[in-house]
């Protein structure tokens, strides 16, 4: 009986587990292996180079710069998206009329791809010449047109990149916060009202935010992981027929060009991927620990 159950278990779980192993675990191990070899233009390298790829990557200014780019990007996008989506959820939750309408409008961009959003941002809103919306609006107030994506100083392209992601993602995180808000027991608010707490900051600080803790932790983790994997908007906003500008290269874009670009240096690319994966793992686990993930409300 027990063996028959084990058999059935594997009938159900087996195909999925085997596919996941083949397409996640195998590439992972293969990548680690490749990173110790000189693997230019080949996937079956023979020349073992030890840690050379790693030291080469860590001494490569372009790669280190790409990590710095990511840090600045994360430092912008995580708190901003967190606050905007939380504010949207709080407002939509309390509005009386047309709640479903507002929820839909803020969530709708989630149906757009980064490619489409980047197109609108690059070719219509933040176009460097006069016919862009942003420069038209600037012109109304007498300002000079700005080359939004071409200039590095001041780095206006940050505004373009951050707003794309904000527009696409804020609604998704708003839905998570709305779900969290739905689960707060109304009794807590009634008790606060009896105690004389006025609705507003006090209630928000002492009831709503603590009750949203679990959601907040999840949202922050997702935001950081997703920021680490930023690729689509950078690639589509900044590259053109002439190639990709050296500024504003996040790690994934850099790895994409290293491993699959002209050089096809799969050994270096793999070493970079392993370094990036380690950083992500350390940050994610550290963040989870710092936010005390898994602590339930019952623990106080």
């Amino acid at each position, binding site marked *: 009986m027990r063996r028959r159950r084990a058999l059935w278990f594997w009938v159900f779980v087996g195909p999925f587990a085997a596919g996941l192993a083949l397409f996640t675990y195998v590439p992972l191990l293969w990548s680690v292996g490749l990173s110790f070899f000189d693997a230019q233009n080949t996937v079956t390298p023979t020349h073992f180079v030890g840690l050379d790829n790693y030291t080469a990557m860590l001494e490569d200014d372009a790669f280190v710069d790409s990590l710095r780019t990511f840090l600045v990007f994360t430092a912008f996008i995580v708190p901003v998206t967190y606050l905007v989506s939380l504010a949207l959820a709080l407002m939509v939750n309390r509005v009386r009329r047309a709640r479903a309408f507002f929820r839909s409008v803020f969530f709708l961009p989630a149906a757009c791809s980064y*490619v*489409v959003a980047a197109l609108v941002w690059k070719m219509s809103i933040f176009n460097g010449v006069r016919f862009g919306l942003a420069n038209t609006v600037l012109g109304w107030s007498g300002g000079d047109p700005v080359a939004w994506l071409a200039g590095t100083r001041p780095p206006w392209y940050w505004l373009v990149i951050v707003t794309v992601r904000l527009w696409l993602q804020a609604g998704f995180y708003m839905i998570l916060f709305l779900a969290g808000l739905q689960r707060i027991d109304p009794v807590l608010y009634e008790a606060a009202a009896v105690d004389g707490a006025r609705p507003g900051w006090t209630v928000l600080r002492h009831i709503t935010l603590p009750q949203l803790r679990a959601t907040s932790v999840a949202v922050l983790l997702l935001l950081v992981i997703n920021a680490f994997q930023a690729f689509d908007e950078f690639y589509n906003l900044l590259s053109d027929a002439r190639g990709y500008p050296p500024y504003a290269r996040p790690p994934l874009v850099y790895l994409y060009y290293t491993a699959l670009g002209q050089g096809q240096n799969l050994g270096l690319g793999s070493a970079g991927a392993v370094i990036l994966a380690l950083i992500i793992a350390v940050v994610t686990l550290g963040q989870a620990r710092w936010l005390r993930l898994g602590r339930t409300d019952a623990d106080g």
Partner: protein
Amino acid sequence: MDDALVRAGRALRLALLIVLAVVFLIPFYLLVRNGLSSEQDITSPQWTFFPKELEWGNVRELFDDPSVPFARSLLNSALIAVATTLGTLVLASLAGYGLARIPYRHANKVFYGILGTLLVPAAVTFVPSFVLVSSLGWISTLRGLIVPTLFSAFACFVFRQYFLGFPRELEDAAQVDGLGYWRTYWLVVVPGARPVFAAVGTIVFLGAWNSFLWPLVIGQDQSAWTVQVALSSFTTSQVVRLHELFVAAVVSVLPLLLVFLLFQRWIVAGVERSGID
């Protein structure tokens, strides 16, 4: 006094929401406006809210343009999105059910092995995954674009959580009637779990339609381009035909907006149910 304050606060909140809603809708408006404008209208330094004339001919021009295989890209995206969605639903729901309901000594270990892959950001493994797919000879094939994306630990996780809370009585009755796991699953469990299938299905469909990095890496030949790759090739190419580009973007978003509006309830339920909080 208090009442007036509360009412003023409410009005202020509503006004702010309306302004924000307009801001969120502007990009959609620009997309459609430019898609139905002539090239001159889009690049005119004198920006106007409405285009001078609606150019419905842009749609025909897009599909007639031989330099970008747009119809082919649409077909590829549709095939990929549908196949990925169906495949993910079957594989992940079976696995989720097995993990939740079939007693097995090592079930937890298997589960943590699956969950662990969520910690491995998919985008970081794209270099080795590319190597694997290319050594299978699957570059620029639909197989290469679909098969590696079928094993979503996220979908499996959602199904497992859902089946853990699924009422046992129905299955018990089915077992008493002599149905095995297999038939119980197809005849009782799947029909009873339609909402979660719809929710996960729409999320997977949206993700598959919009994904970019993987199709960019694997779909190297034009014949294997997806809509997103085709659009991106427009923006990064030398000659940019803006009106065609925008109408292409509109065409690429329309099916999704339709899915989105039809299934929004399910998506929201699915996101809420995703167990990430």
